[in-house]
């Protein structure tokens, strides 16, 4: 094995030291992929901004908060799409969504190239609600066409905005999901549940409750995500490399397996009041210790408790 160049060694150091959560979308893309390999498509210099935000006197971003392009991951050609969670909460607007739809349709047409979606979203951008909602529907359709054509679409979740609303539905269509402690996946957000049903139903200010119900560790333990990683870009990169390896067909058998897995989950845990009850039922001896567990210890526990379900999502 040849010695790594100083540039690559330097990148490795940077990746290990960089927090996925703290990084911008651009930084995640730059550091996730092989050094200097990222080619952005329809980048900010094209100035394809939202045609709707001005109605609300809101500032635009030149890339509309969605960065798409191609690059290399350990020398293999990959496509990538990353949401900037700090711009409009990473929410789906018309242009933002269309960029991802375009990438997915490209993946459908060139099925041997995997696509990584770096989710960081609160869901639909309300100022463009109808366009955002439609974008999500089009994305899901394009994603399934891509998977049926044999492509892998892998979601990485660990940003500030989480993966909420329509983003959670898109995530549910991916071939596989990688999640960190900071990642959250849900349809309705904590505040919305509290507003509609009261704090007794869900206290959105109880952070521990939010993370038990929607957070990365819970999703890994219940089978809503395939891999749990530490909050470093290096960890996400290692997971990404692992998951892109084998192409997997998507067919009726996968759907049937997923139907079974979701039925089983409902049968087993449908009466559980809290995540800790679910974890206890799964064989976790000390559920209360889970939130504080360090990543390595948690990963070992999760691997013991539950195999990732690659053929049933």
């Amino acid at each position, binding site marked *: 094995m040849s010695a790594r160049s100083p540039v690559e060694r330097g990148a490795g150091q940077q990746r290990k030291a960089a927090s996925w959560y703290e990084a*911008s979308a*651009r930084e995640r893309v730059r550091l996730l992929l092989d050094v*200097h390999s990222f080619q952005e498509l329809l*980048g*900010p*210099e094209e*100035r394809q901004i939202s045609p709707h935000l*001005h109605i609300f*006197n*809101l*500032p*635009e*971003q*030149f890339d509309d908060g969605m960065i798409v392009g191609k690059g290399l991951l350990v020398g293999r050609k990959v496509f990538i799409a990353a949401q*900037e969670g*700090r*711009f409009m909460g990473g929410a789906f607007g018309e242009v933002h969504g269309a960029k991802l739809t375009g990438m997915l349709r490209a993946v459908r047409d060139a099925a041997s190239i995997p696509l990584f979606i770096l989710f960081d979203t609160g869901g639909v951008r309300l100022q463009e609600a109808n366009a955002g909602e439609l974008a999500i529907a089009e994305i899901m359709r394009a994603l399934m066409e891509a998977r049926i054509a044999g492509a892998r679409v892998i979601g990485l979740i660990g940003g500030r905005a989480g993966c909420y609303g329509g983003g959670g539905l898109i995530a549910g269509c991916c071939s596989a999901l990688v999640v960190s402690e900071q990642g959250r996946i849900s349809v309705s957000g904590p505040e919305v549940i509290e507003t509609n049903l009261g704090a007794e139903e869900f206290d959105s200010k109880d952070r521990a409750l939010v993370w038990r119900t929607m957070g990365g560790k819970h999703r890994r333990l219940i089978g809503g995500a395939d891999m749990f990683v530490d909050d470093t870009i290096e960890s996400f990169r290692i997971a990404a490399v692992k998951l892109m390896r084998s192409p997997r067909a998507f067919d009726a058998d996968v759907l049937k397996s997923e139907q079974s897995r979701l039925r089983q989950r409902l049968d087993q845990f449908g009466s559980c009041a809290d995540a800790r009850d679910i974890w206890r039922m799964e064989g976790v001896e000390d559920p209360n210790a889970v939130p504080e567990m360090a990543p390595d210890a948690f990963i070992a526990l999760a691997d013991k408790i539950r195999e990732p379900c690659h053929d049933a999502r």
Partner: protein
Amino acid sequence: METLHFHHKVKHRAAGTKAMAIVGVVASGNLEVLVERILPNSDCELDIKTAAEGFGAVWQLVVADFVELRSPGGLKLSINDGGARPDTVAIRLAQAVRLIEDVDP
């Protein structure tokens, strides 16, 4: 929203050969700066779109300081601002120029 435009004549062109760079995020208290090397060497332009209206004079000062300090000749800087403080603006402008002056890979 308010748009501002500044044009300065400068002594030196910005170093390096990179054609484009981008820095920052559009959010409350933050801004993005897109910098493109598309002007004659002695010119620098800034196009600013800002959510915080009425601060033209402040922008003028920040921009003037920036141009004086960095001599960003040949650069056009396009800014989407979410209401950042002057010191944040100054930092982003400096970051943008540093980024575009990096040697091309």
